[in-house]
């Protein structure tokens, strides 16, 4: 059941004038319609994102000083990037952010899919369960971070007896951040996967059961392949969000102990707004964007999500 584009082929048997031109007309009209449908969205996006992004990229290539009179540029340079690449702080932030992304996304995908599988079987309580699941996700990130900060607090936190100084060591602080993130974001994956599961026609499952396949076999052979595009989207956007990690470490650990939990976004923010070094700061941000972009493109290629690979007119 591989979806393809609307491409009605020419009818097989009738003689007479070739029908290709009429089909072409329909196609061209549909294409125009497609542009018409997409235009509003694209215009809004372009108006509010293109200029700021281009501006940031330009700033990253300039010696820039921010002052009361705005941004003053004094010469194109690549030195911002060389400063960034040589900085031990950036190396550590990159390593930390990557490790964090890999671990949390993996955990969330596995946990989220398991949750979705359970919930899909739930007949009566699915609605309330979904509402329940959305509560952590809908908590304002800063509030969720404050909640976990309160739980992990070294003076009056909940875990004081078991783990007295969770945020005091780089390793345990990292784990603490990951737990807080996983708690908050697994519902995101669960909802996406659940929506994908629900859209799979039940006949496919019934067919598989008629064939004598047990629960897990059905999952691996039937469910997972059908879920692949959905999971692909979930992974892709989770990776994008995880790489932009900011609120949690900013509130929970302020990048500490020392700078061991400073993520790339935090580094960019601190460089820009605390040190007032907008050149290197935007260089950090732009390089982060580039890294994530390359990762996503590679991921898309590898995963072969349905992004125009089978369309004849991509």
């Amino acid at each position, binding site marked *: 059941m591989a*979806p393809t584009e609307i491409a009605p082929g020419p009818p097989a048997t009738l003689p007479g004038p070739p029908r290709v031109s009429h089909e072409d007309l329909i196609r061209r009209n549909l294409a125009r319609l497609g542009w018409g449908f997409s235009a509003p969205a694209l215009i809004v996006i372009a108006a509010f994102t293109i200029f*700021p992004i281009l501006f940031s990229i330009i700033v990253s290539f300039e010696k820039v000083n921010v002052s009361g009179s705005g941004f003053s540029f004094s010469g194109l340079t690549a030195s911002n990037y060389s400063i960034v690449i040589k900085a031990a702080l950036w190396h550590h932030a990159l390593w930390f952010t990557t490790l964090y992304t890999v671990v949390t996304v993996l955990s969330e995908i596995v946990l989220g899919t398991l949750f979705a599988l359970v*919930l899909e079987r739930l007949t009566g309580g699915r609605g309330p369960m979904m509402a329940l699941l959305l509560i952590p996700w809908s908590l304002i990130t800063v509030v969720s971070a404050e909640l976990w900060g309160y*739980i992990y607090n070294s003076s009056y936190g909940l875990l*004081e007896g078991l783990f007295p100084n969770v945020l005091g060591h780089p390793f345990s602080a990292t784990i603490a951040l990951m737990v807080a993130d996983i708690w908050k974001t697994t519902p995101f994956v669960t909802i996406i996967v659940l*929506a994908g599961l*629900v*859209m799979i026609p039940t006949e496919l499952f019934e067919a598989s059961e008629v064939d004598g396949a047990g629960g897990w076999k059905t999952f691996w052979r039937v469910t997972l392949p059908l879920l692949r595009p959905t999971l692909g989207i979930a992974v892709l956007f989770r990776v994008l969000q995880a790489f932009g990690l900011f609120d949690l470490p900013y509130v929970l650990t302020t990048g500490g102990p020392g700078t061991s939990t400073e993520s790339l976004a935090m580094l960019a923010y601190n460089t820009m707004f605390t040190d007032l070094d907008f050149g290197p700061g935007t260089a950090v941000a732009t390089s982060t964007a580039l890294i994530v972009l390359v990762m996503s493109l590679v991921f898309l290629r590898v995963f072969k999500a349905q992004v125009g690979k089978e369309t004849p007119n991509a």
Partner: protein
Amino acid sequence: MRNRTRHGWRRWVNWVNFFSLLIALFVLLPMYWLVASSFKTTASVGSSPPQYFPIPVTTSNYQVAFGDYTFGRYILNSLIVACCATTLVLVLGILAGYALGRLPVRGKYPMMVTLLMISVFPQIAVIAPLYLIMRDLGWLNSYEALIFPYTAFNLPFAIWILRNYFLGISMSMEESARVDGAGPVRTLVSVIVPQVKPGIFTAGVFTFTACWTEFLMALSFNIENNFRTIPVGIATFGSQFTVPYGTIFAASVVAVVPIAILVLVFRKSVVSGLTAGAVKG
């Protein structure tokens, strides 16, 4: 028969319910701590060892949040901004997601990649130039200062998600609709869209939540108290040396309620349409 009705004690005691209970606990335990702490006095918030039950119970945190901090105004502002942005995102996103998914548009792969590139760019870096845009448009301290950037930054994700769900529908839909004599818009609205309700629900909830919890832009563009949103409001609680957990949690308990309502209201219409088996091959 996957979701067979069980009889007798198996109706309640079975592995599905057991795991659902575990999931519920996973979610609820930290939330209990949040809600319980919102009813604690300042002294009990900082007490060590921690008090598991708020004794004495007090609603002073709620009073402070709504009285001293005009939290009600912040909730209204957040509601307005999030609702408008979500509506815009869904309408524009459905159109674009459908077009880029099922219509023969040239250059859709580059388009999707460009959208990806846009959602990849860290928002931290674009705050300053966006501020300049808002200043030049005269939109500082207004609702549109947040609605339009939120729409612009959430559309890429919405388009990706919706497009994915659109592609999951059988191709023959448009054919049959055309046979019935429906134009493309009618086809989209009456035939295709009802099939992807879970996708729309997903995109809508995520957009709403993203707008509800966004901090950086709200902080930079809407400084005036009349236009502050919830996250910015919470950032003004307390003082330099105190973190008023009780008040923060009280405010966030109230802030979660609209989302919970939204989910319950819209979920029913989505799921009921599907379980009747409208998805046919």
